[in-house]
């Protein structure tokens, strides 16, 4: 198809690595138990790996090891794999000294030793027609996986590389690259955010090449129901056209573009950029599940939940209580969530991929159904009873007041793919002479299904978006070329966004009345999608840089790598001393 395409462009772009920067560093407290085991409190997203690691190091059965996690001070994927070695080391130390050992890594050690987001270099060829309709893509992602190949090394990019576009012919190759660095690891939206960025770079290249409006070219290629994604999913309930249309109307894109254009005409050394980026986040289940139990206390009817998810800030516990209160018909303050423990939540998988909350909620709904069924005979004995009276009766009737559930394949929800759809506009103003810029406005419209808790979901969306800004704009690594040591291993060298890096005007909106037919109570996942959308600002900056380059009559496509730092933005503006005049 590539050979017959009217136009073909090719290019190379880079998407950098990123450190998770959880404010709570990796920690493990290992306490030898009186029967030769190890009780562990670990800052992990995956308790099972901690148990396996400690079991292997100490040569003791897994059943003698328990891991408890109350919550994390941030995880972002960094505590899926990289807490296990910390547990292992602390456990070995505790075993050798026969004393409790607390290991709490300092930031520098944590940054040096822990793998980061996989750094990708995308090489692509895109074939398309005169309108910008893409006919074929041949692309390769070289992923810097560090010293070892972990997993398949493709990071599920196949599910995301086509983003929201229906590409009829697509050849996607991932080539893991070995470097002498820690093994790269999951960082919020691993693979996803770089892949979507890669696709956006390609389509950006097409629009720039054709000198067409970027949004129009994108709209030409949008997916719709019945299309098959690169990952092979036949789309149903595809909302992307609706989302883009609604956003277009909401922010009056045409007017905004005109204003930017006018501004750029009137300002040589200040340039504005405006960009619209659509986004798809495919829910990938991967067979994760979380064993979940609810317990009713007979004394007062209060309930406690023990679920296998790890609350790292995303608010599983709150949603779990909401679901439980909703299903049992009791006030939320009767319900509490206990820390995650391998004693009761044995075999729960890692909390990741935005899916944990939904799966825990699903399990809680099932537990509640089970419990209500068991309570029914006791309830029937009473006239208009309160919850407390039902529970008291059930206790005297010797009813088991605990219910347990683990989501499984037969539950349709986790086995079915769905996508959440979004689109974002960003406007920036660039100081061409310094490379400094401000994000003046971002409008983000997202399909969250029927949100179980819009406040928490907005928190996820905003936080993810800003983490994306870090990935695409400010965060980057430097290494000693001789020793390979990480030089940017602290707060003075490594720069996640701060409070003045967010858009000056940041509007977030959820689509109305779009229940997800396959989600828990109609909801959709929301934690990771917005990371990739952070790239929207990078492209808005590129538009501003293009305006600066246009002053030099340079309208050619150029690669604009992530992170687009102040330094690289200014450099990309190609300022020419000859133009530094007073206009006389």
């Amino acid at each position: 198809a590539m050979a017959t395409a009217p136009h073909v462009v090719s290019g190379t772009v880079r998407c950098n690595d990123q450190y998770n920067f959880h404010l709570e560093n990796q920690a493990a407290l290992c306490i030898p138990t009186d029967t030769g085991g190890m009780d562990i409190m670990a800052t992990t997203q995956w308790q099972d790996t901690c148990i396996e690691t400690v079991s292997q190091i100490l040569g003791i059965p897994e059943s003698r090891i328990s891991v408890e996690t109350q919550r994390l001070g941030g995880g972002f994927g960094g505590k899926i794999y990289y807490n296990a070695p910390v547990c292992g080391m602390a456990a070995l130390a505790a075993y050798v000294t026969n004393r409790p050992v607390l290991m709490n890594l300092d930031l520098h050690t944590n940054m040096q030793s822990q793998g980061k987001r996989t750094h990708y270099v995308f090489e692509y060829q895109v074939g398309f027609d005169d309108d910008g309709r893409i006919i074929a893509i041949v692309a390769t992602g070289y992923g810097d996986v560090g010293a070892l190949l972990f997993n398949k090394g493709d990071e599920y990019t196949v599910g995301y590389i086509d983003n929201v576009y229906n590409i009829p012919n697509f050849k996607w190759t991932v080539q893991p690259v070995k470097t002498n660095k820690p093994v790269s690891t999951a960082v919020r939206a691993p693979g996803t955010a770089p892949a979507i960025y890669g696709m956006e770079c390609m389509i950006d290249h097409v629009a720039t090449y054709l000198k067409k409006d970027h949004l129009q070219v994108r709209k030409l290629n949008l997916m719709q129901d019945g299309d098959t994604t690169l990952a092979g999913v036949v789309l149903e309930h595809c909302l992307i056209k609706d989302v883009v249309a609604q956003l277009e109307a909401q922010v009056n894109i045409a007017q905004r573009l005109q204003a930017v254009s006018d501004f750029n005409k009137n300002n040589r050394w200040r340039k504005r950029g405006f960009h619209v980026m659509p986004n798809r986040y495919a829910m990938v289940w991967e067979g994760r599940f979380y064993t979940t139990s609810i317990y009713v206390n007979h004394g007062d009817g209060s309930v406690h939940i023990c679920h296998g998810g790890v609350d790292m800030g995303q608010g599983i516990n709150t949603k779990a209580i909401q679901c439980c209160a909703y299903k049992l018909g009791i006030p939320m303050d009767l319900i509490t969530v206990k820390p995650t423990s391998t004693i009761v939540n044995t075999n729960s998988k890692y909390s990741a991929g935005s899916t944990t909350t939904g799966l825990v909620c699903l399990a809680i709904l099932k537990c509640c159904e089970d419990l209500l069924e068991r309570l029914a005979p006791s309830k029937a004995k009473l006239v208009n009873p309160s919850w407390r009276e039902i529970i008291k009766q059930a206790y005297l009737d010797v009813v088991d007041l605990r219910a347990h559930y683990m989501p499984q394949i037969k539950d349709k929800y986790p086995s079915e793919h769905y996508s959440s759809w979004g689109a974002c506009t960003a406007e920036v103003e660039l100081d061409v002479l310094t490379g400094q810029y401000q994000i003046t406005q971002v409008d983000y419209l997202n399909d969250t299904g029927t949100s179980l808790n819009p406040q928490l979901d907005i928190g996820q969306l905003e936080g993810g978006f800003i983490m994306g800004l870090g990935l695409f704009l400010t965060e980057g690594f430097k290494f000693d070329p001789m020793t390979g040591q990480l030089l940017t291993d602290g707060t003075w060298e490594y720069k996640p966004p701060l409070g003045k890096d967010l858009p000056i005007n940041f509007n977030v909106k959820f689509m109305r009345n779009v229940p997800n037919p396959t989600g828990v109570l109609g909801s959709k996942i929301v934690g990771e999608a917005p990371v990739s959308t952070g790239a929207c600002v990078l492209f808005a900056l590129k538009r501003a840089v293009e305006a600066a380059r246009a002053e030099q009559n340079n309208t050619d496509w150029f690669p604009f790598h992530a992170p687009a730092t102040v330094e690289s933005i200014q450099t990309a503006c190609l300022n020419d001393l000859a133009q530094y005049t007073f206009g006389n």
Partner: protein
Amino acid sequence: PGDAFQIQFSINGEKHVVYESYPATTTLNDYIRDVAGLKGTKVMCREAGCGCCAVAVTHASGGDKVETMSINSCITPLYSVDGWQITTTEGIGNQKDGFHPIQKQVAKHNATQCGYCTPGFVMSMYGLLHQNPKLTQQEIEDSFDGHICRCTGYRSILDAMKTFGSDATGPNAKPIDIEDLNKHLCPKTGEKCKKDTKSNCPITPPSSLSLDLRDSKWHRPLNLKELGTIFTKNKGKSIRLVFGNTSTGIFKFDGPYDIYIDLHSVEELYQYKESASSVIFGANTTLTKLKEHMKNLQYKPGFFYCTRVIRHLKVLASVLVRNAGCIAGNLMIKHNHPDFPSDLFTMMAAIGASVGVYDTSSGKITKHPILEFLQKVKMAGKVLAFLEIPKFEENEHYRSFKITPRWQNAHAYVNAAFKIQVEKLLVKTKPSFVFGGINAETVHATKAEEFIKGKTLSDAVIKETLKILASELKPSSDDPLHASAKYRHDLAVNLLYKTLLEVAKPTDPKIRSGADSMERPISSGLQTFQEKKSEFPLMQAMPKLEAPLQASGETVYANDIPAFQRELYGAFVISTVAIGAIVNIDCSEALAIPGVVKFISAADIPEGGKNNFMDVVFFPTIGAEEVFVSKNVEYAGQSIGLILAETQALAELAARKVKITYGSMQEPIIYVEDGVAKGSFFEQKFNKIMGQSEDALKNSDLTVSGQIYEGGQYYYYIENQVSVAVPTEDGIDVYSSTQMPDMTQKSSADIIGKPLNYINLIGCRVGGAFGGKALYSSVMAAAATLGSYVTKRPVRVCVSMSTNMKLIGKRFPLIARYKAGLNRDGKMNSIDLEIFADNGFRPPIMIEELLHSLDQ
């Protein structure tokens, strides 16, 4: 020993340096558990009575020979162990380095159940084997008098220990390997001696020590002169002489003192001198050492009586106490508390011993007959220097007795010692008839002694002697703890009769049967059962899997959980009257003690909280019972409040200083008989009728009727009740030694008016329960929870044995009145039975259980 401002010692080979940072009353046990963090050494009674705190100590005080023995860590002052090596059960074996043979044998013999007493037994055995690696099984069996086990019934423990006997045979016999005793501990480092340097490694002589512990001073003089100087410098101050400190097990609240003088290094007090007419023992001679000396002496002419003294010394306190306590300590208890039935004093008075008294002001030692020491010598400014025992004349006969409610480790009802010189039935000289436990004054039965002198023993003389004795002994009857005056009186008379029977040797064996004391041979037992090999590992006899860990002290019980940051310790303030209304609670004195943080009571229960720990769905008939008395006291020992302090010792001290004023006090009903007589009945009454008992009774050949009484019983778990309440971000974690987590959680939530899911109740391994940690764990947990809620700090409530015994309910005493009808063959036709059960002040819960088991 370190410099003058610190002490040094080792625990399990690890060096510990302690500065002047703890009060003088801090015990070795406090340090081992709370500072060194070695929780294998347990603590329960804190009065050297239960043995779970036993540790082995190695030191050279008393000469140049390093010796190892086991002692009670709970009464050993921390500052007395300078230069010692301490060995705890973790130090002799553990799961990582391998278990010690003693631990292995204990496990193998299933000699652990709850495991709380086990480390003490293990360390006692370890110390015993140090003292004598060739102990016989009999000696081993004799040597666990300082240990209580409530679970096993001892057979398995003794079987395990006896495998180390030099005369043990059979497949389990396990002679101890000298390597397993760390025989060559270096007195400097506490490590195993490196043999090549042995010759260059003389024992460091002790140095004097002078510590300023703020509230008091701690001195360790090296000789009597230094001791005298300390006395002179501290005229007018209260001075406590310390050696084994074992008397604090009995007289707990003596003090506090300004000056503590550790006598361990005073060299003159260790003398041992045999002469033609007497033997002198330095006052610092431990009771164990005294016994050892007498083992040699007993074969020497004139000292044969030592055999009898040894027999008696074996029932004086326990091995652990005798290892720590010395002659002077025991005699000084008698001097300070003349009503104390000191066995040593009774024996020595009859023997005719003397003591040397060192006067610190004159610097001279004077000798006094022991009776004069008791009755005439004022000991202020003076120190006992030695005990001297005489050589007996020919035909002088000695015998002494200790009659106790339990064979080992019990105070005497009455003890007695007799010395009588008899030649062909003629009592040649005035004998000594000495009694303890009669009253504070009586030592000699002088009239009986006078009477029998010069008489020839005959029925008439014996009768008259006993009659005179009977009339001159006037047992006191003011202490309800003592046995009845009549029993003590009759017992004293009978002991003299036994002695005279032995001396007179009547020919009629029937009469002579009264002469001997009971001798207990070594015990044995046979266990018979069936295993089912086809079903193994089911139906296979095997010891508990955690048994080795219990023996090595590695199992963690609630009070072994390490202290949480800013943890407070609680001590209950309990009522001292049975019926009364609280008029006033004055805790000003208690709260004035630095480190005492708060007193909480019913007034601190927040709005919505319930002052009732017996609110249980499962027991609908149960009555309410307050966590803290709100107004009216229902029994003596009821919890009124909880003192919270920075240490357990401070909490206990402050709790004793809280003054409660009661009004409307009344005489309580204490015994079930009184309750029946006064018609003090609950509404509940339980009936069970089968057949027509009245008719059947009438038609019976015979009828019998009567009334029997059954007393109550205390659980006597070796682990007292423990609750630790720790505030968390969204509730309180409560660690409890409970049998009944459900109700314990409920009482904790209720008292602060929170839902149950506010409380995480973590049930811990329980060190014995027997039903006693069901209902009453709830009061402990509720009190700890309230304390934690009010102060926002972790609170540990680990009650003292005394409070534990006073506060909680026990097995109910009963009176059963019965009428039974039977036929001539003894077949019963009918029983009419009425049972009165003493439930205490609130309605019962378990009383119906009685009805299920009545027909046996």
